[in-house]
């Protein structure tokens, strides 16, 4: 039910949009609100629910959807934040288009795609079948392609969209590979069944690793992170959605979904730890050095999902549930912050750089307060939901033991620092920009998300329950977590205090490290993975160009390409299948009666060889016909006078035809080809072809003739049955009766040849 609603939202809105563009936004808001309500109701009151029916029974493919804890968490995020984003976009988008001088007709497209995004997210999170997961996974990629490239007139948008599509699309294939591997081994795509039956081992680890890589690339973890900051070319609501609840979240979701398979291998968990930590550091440090608001937030996302991956890597029930909790907290805060960035830019007439902003606190007090709450949430200050996310994070790290708490501390300090930079950069200090008042529809979503962040810091229960339910699915077992305020000096609190203290220190010492962060980001641009991406694309193009030259060649040399392998194949076949007694290599006896036959054969052969010598076309025709006529004589010696007569007839016609063609050809053309000899290369090739065909023919004939005549042949029966077919002569019977269909076919061949020639030469004027 929630799924159907979510999937229907996009078509309905698109339809409304085509009828009247102004209806798009309200309809979009209504459908996404409905979808959110349905998910919420289904989870909170109806207790989940599932759909399961066979799709392609031959391969045990099922349409299996279930609203379990993990699905509920992500579906609520997708629909809830989707709702906030759609509301926000209803005002933002007209402003955005106005800035770019584009018509309002582009609005429905945006809503349709963002709702398609939402629908495919809901489908993705509820799917229990790896193949379905793959389908929805690709749907999200397609939706994101169109959303990132929404500002299609800009080169940057198109480049970024293609990059996002390629990076996530190509790694998506790995998801399919992993699924296939599991299917081949266990005969099912259903995750619950797989989790039960799969046995730990190298095979399972490889399959799980493939799927995890797909997830990591989508959630922009190092070294796949480069596409995400580029994707900021998208309009702000898209970024907000992409980062908090859809695209990037989908990557983490996938890891959560296949986690029971992943955690069978300690190696994979360690790999997740490394990648998570690397993303935490790279994202965090780069976020410190960015000037453009959305870029800063983008790197922050990389870093934040690095936390989540890190927690997955830590493992254990605590890691699993804490990761889910972290996703909720991050989604609320990050979407609010992105929407803030968009609001700030719109109200200041398009200013996107931190260094040109400041002092907006007085101009936009409500915006400052709401985004302050969100920023505090991300930076994990007390009284926000973020505090608990870090509490759980530290607890999971502590459970694992040293040195992980220290790594966690490092990440938390980075987060605190760049959030401070973001918020104070915009809102504190001297005003540096004009600021227009913002519409309610843009402020309200930010405020609500900010309030939710605070609300979660006071009443943490519902969020905990959701995270526990999701964690239980991820971990495949109970995962009790108990975030709460404890006013004592337990290690978790000490770490939190250390975060605040160190954070303050880092903020104060900014001049000392800001240069270093800049250098780090420049190094990344020079040798980072984006460079590799560009290199591999240009390399592929160059390779394609190069082999194109091999491809363009003449017909004649292609005939060589056909004949030489043929010779090799026939020869090899003959050698392999030659019987052991070597009877095929024996030569029979020659008797006096055979001499005329041998003379005729030699004549044929000489004529055939001689045909390669003359340059004059007339001579060539005559030599060729000499070869043909002497072959006719061979037939006659073999006791086939009728065949010989037909051969003579054919040869005569062919010779006359060739002579007629020569007579019609412009003499200049003939002269030129006679006087200009062929190049040595061409001649070598010609000899090669000739040699190859000779060998083929010789081997074929030798092989066939060294067989005894078959005992039963249809020819004998044809002769026997000719009277039954009411004819006295066997050729007539074969042509007209036994093999009548072939005759019909041959007549058709003649007809088509006539037709083709008439179409070419006579422009169809047959009569």
């Amino acid at each position: 039910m929630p799924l159907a609603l979510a999937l229907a939202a996009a078509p309905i809105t698109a339809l409304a949009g085509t009828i009247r563009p102004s209806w798009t936004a309200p309809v979009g808001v209504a459908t996404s609100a409905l979808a959110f309500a349905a998910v919420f109701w289904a989870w909170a009151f109806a207790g989940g629910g599932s759909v399961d029916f066979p799709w392609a029974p031959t391969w045990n493919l099922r349409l299996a959807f279930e609203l379990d804890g993990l699905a509920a968490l992500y579906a609520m995020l997708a629909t809830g934040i989707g709702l906030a984003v759609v509301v926000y976009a209803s005002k933002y988008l007209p402003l955005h288009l106005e800035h770019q001088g584009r018509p309002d007709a582009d609005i429905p497209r945006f809503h349709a795609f963002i709702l398609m995004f939402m629908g495919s997210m809901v489908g993705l999170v509820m799917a229990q079948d790896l193949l379905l997961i793959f389908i929805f996974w690709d749907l999200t990629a397609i939706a994101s392609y169109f959303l990132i490239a929404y500002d299609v007139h800009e080169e940057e948008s198109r480049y970024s969209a293609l990059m996002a599509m390629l990076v996530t699309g190509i790694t998506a294939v790995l998801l399919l590979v992993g699924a296939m591997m599991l299917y081949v081994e266990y005969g099912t795509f259903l995750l619950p069944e797989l989790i039960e039956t799969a046995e730990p081992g190298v095979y399972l680890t490889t399959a799980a690793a493939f799927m995890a890589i797909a997830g990591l690339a989508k959630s922009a973890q190092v070294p796949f992170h480069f596409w995400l900051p580029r994707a900021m070319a998208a309009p702000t609501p898209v970024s907000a959605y992409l980062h908090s609840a859809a695209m990037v979240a989908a990557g983490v979701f996938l890891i959560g979904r296949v986690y029971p398979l992943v955690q069978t291998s300690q190696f994979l968990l360690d790999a997740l730890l490394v990648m998570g930590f690397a993303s935490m550091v790279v994202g965090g440090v780069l976020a410190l050095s960015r000037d453009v608001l959305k870029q800063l937030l983008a790197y922050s996302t990389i870093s934040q999902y690095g936390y989540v991956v890190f927690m997955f890597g830590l493992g254990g029930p605590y890691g699993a549930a804490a990761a889910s909790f972290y996703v909720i907290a991050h989604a609320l805060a990050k979407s609010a912050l992105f929407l803030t960035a968009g609001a700030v830019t719109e109200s200041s007439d398009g200013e996107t750089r931190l260094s040109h902003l400041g002092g907006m606190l007085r101009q936009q007090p409500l915006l400052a307060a709401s985004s302050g709450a969100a920023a505090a949430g991300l930076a994990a200050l007390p009284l926000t939901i973020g505090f608990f996310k870090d509490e759980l994070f530290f607890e999971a790290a502590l459970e694992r033991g040293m040195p992980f708490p220290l790594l966690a501390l490092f990440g938390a300090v980075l987060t605190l620092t760049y959030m401070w930079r973001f918020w104070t950069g915009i809102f504190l200090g001297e005003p540096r920009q004009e600021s227009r008042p913002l519409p309610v529809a843009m402020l309200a979503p930010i405020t609500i998300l900010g309030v939710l962040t605070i609300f979660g810091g006071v009443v943490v229960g519902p969020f905990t329950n959701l995270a526990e339910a999701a964690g239980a699915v991820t971990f495949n077992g109970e995962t009790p977590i108990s975030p709460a305020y404890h006013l004592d000096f337990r290690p978790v609190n000490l770490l939190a205090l250390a975060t605040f203290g160190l954070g303050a220190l880092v903020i104060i010492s900014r001049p000392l490290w800001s240069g270093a962060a800049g250098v780090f980001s420049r190094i990344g641009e020079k040798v980072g993975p984006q460079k590799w991406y560009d290199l591999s694309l240009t390399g592929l193009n160059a390779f394609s160009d190069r082999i194109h030259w091999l491809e363009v060649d003449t017909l004649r040399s292609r005939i060589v390409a056909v004949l030489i392998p043929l010779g090799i194949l026939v020869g090899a076949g003959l050698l392999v299948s030659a019987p052991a007694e070597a009877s095929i290599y024996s030569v029979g006896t020659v008797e006096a009666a055979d001499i005329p036959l041998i003379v005729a054969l030699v004549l044929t052969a000489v004529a055939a060889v001689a045909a390669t010598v003359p340059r004059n076309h007339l001579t060539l025709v005559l030599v060729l016909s000499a070869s043909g006529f002497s072959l006719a004589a061979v037939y006659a010696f073999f006791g086939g006078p009728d065949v010989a007569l037909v051969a003579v007839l054919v040869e005569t016609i062919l010779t006359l035809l060739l002579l007629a063609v020569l007579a019609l050809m412009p003499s200049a053309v003939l002269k030129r080809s006679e006087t200009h000899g062929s190049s040595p290369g061409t001649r070598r090739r010609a000899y090669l072809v000739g040699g190859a065909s000779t060998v083929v023919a010789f081997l074929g004939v030798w092989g066939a003739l060294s067989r005894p005549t078959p005992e039963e042949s249809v020819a004998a029966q044809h002769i026997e049955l000719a009277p039954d077919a009411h004819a006295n002569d066997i050729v007539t019977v074969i042509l007209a009766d036994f093999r009548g269909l072939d005759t019909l076919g041959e007549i058709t061949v003649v007809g088509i040849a006539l037709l083709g020639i008439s179409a070419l030469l006579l422009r169809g004027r047959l009569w």
Partner: protein
Amino acid sequence: MASVFENTNWMLAPILVPLAAATVAFLLMGIRGEARRNAQNAVGLAAALGVALSALALWAMVSGGGPVRYELGGWEAPLGINLYADGLSVFMLITTAIVGGAGSVYALGYFSGREGEDARRKEDLQDETGSFWPLWMFLWASMNGMFLAADAFNLYITLEILGLSAAALITLGGTRMAFSAGMRYLMVSLLGSLAYLLGVALLYGSFGALDLATLGEAASPIPPVWAALALISLGMALKTGLFPLHFWMPAAYTSAPSAASAILAGLVGKASFYLLLRVWFDVFGGSAPPAAGQIPGVLGAVAIVWGAVMAMRQTRIKTLLAYSSVSQMGYLFLLFALVSGAAPERSFEAWGGGVYLVLAHACAKAAMFMAAGVVIYSVGHDEIPRLRGIFQKLPISVATFAVGGITMMGLPTSGGFTAKYLLFTASVGTGQWWYSLVVLAGSILAALYLLRFLNPALIQVPTAKVYRDAPQIMSGTAFVLAVFSVFLGLMSAPLFELLSVGAPFPSGTMGGS
């Protein structure tokens, strides 16, 4: 009803209906102008309907009572010529009925072009001589005849008709390029048929029979059988366009009128592949060593990559599609390596996957060529750099391209997915996992070359001028066919049931362990 389907005379219908239509359309060439076109259109559509109906009737007959044999003139094999229909034959008939039917409908619009509106046009959109319908009907009759033939020489005759009429269709455009491509195809086709004929002659010389079933029983690993296998395989690989014998394909598919390109790329290449399947498994099934299958398998694997990489840098849509065909044809040849693998229980999977790709690719590729035809009709050319932003003007055609691309890439729910998935599992299951890598690489490369066109086509920039609107029936047919190819994955069960009738391999458990 059942009694109607038991009448084996139905088997003649798929051959005789287009043959009769061809003759009528041929005679109609005598009329001039509008009247001729209308009359020929009517005849062509009636034939398409007739083929579809007879294919359905044969489907009912074969899936009800197993393979059917029809003795022409009452002479039983090996004396006379027999027609024989098993699951594979009917499957191929259905393929031609679908793609050929769509091609016929498309041709209604395609050849309605008016003269003289743009001198830069790449294709002649008029069939001034009225030769399209007779040629196409002859071609169709020959394909259906081939699928039903049970006689090696009869197969040769159908091969001849096929090659000649296809070559004539290529030159129908009347341009210089079309003429040279048509000549080249004619040479290739004759060479291929000649190789086949030599093979058949060797077989006849050794076993004294032409009936396929009789030959299959008699064949044993002796030198002439080997030579025949090599000759026939090479001839058919040449006509199907297996790497490195694909050189004629790009020019032929690009220069033919798009209505003909769709048929050529969708069906004609597949017909010779069918012949290869038939001969390889029904005649040489017992006598070819398993290792022989590796030759077409490896060449197919190279073709997948080679064709895709070539496709990436093409600047015309039709050339891009032609190279994509080189790549997709490579998939078909993988099955020869996979059925001869270590696990015989996987054989049906590999064989069925390859055959299913014939249908899926035929639908998708024909649809894409039709879409390219719409572009040419409307804009006058199909050069990708000059088609930036064409989505705004021709949304349905670009969508057709994208939807057809789903099958090319082998994404789920498409027929291409089902087929590639079977090839994939068969290659993993038989321990030849390197082929599975090629299958995947082909899919990724397909995405890349399709984006070559789609990415610029989707930009919103001032775009090329559409100087005339293509008839709705053209873009509509293409789109429906493309969408059909995407749904093929969902309705594969009955088709595989059909394929298992008289299949050379037992269809036990498919997929899974």
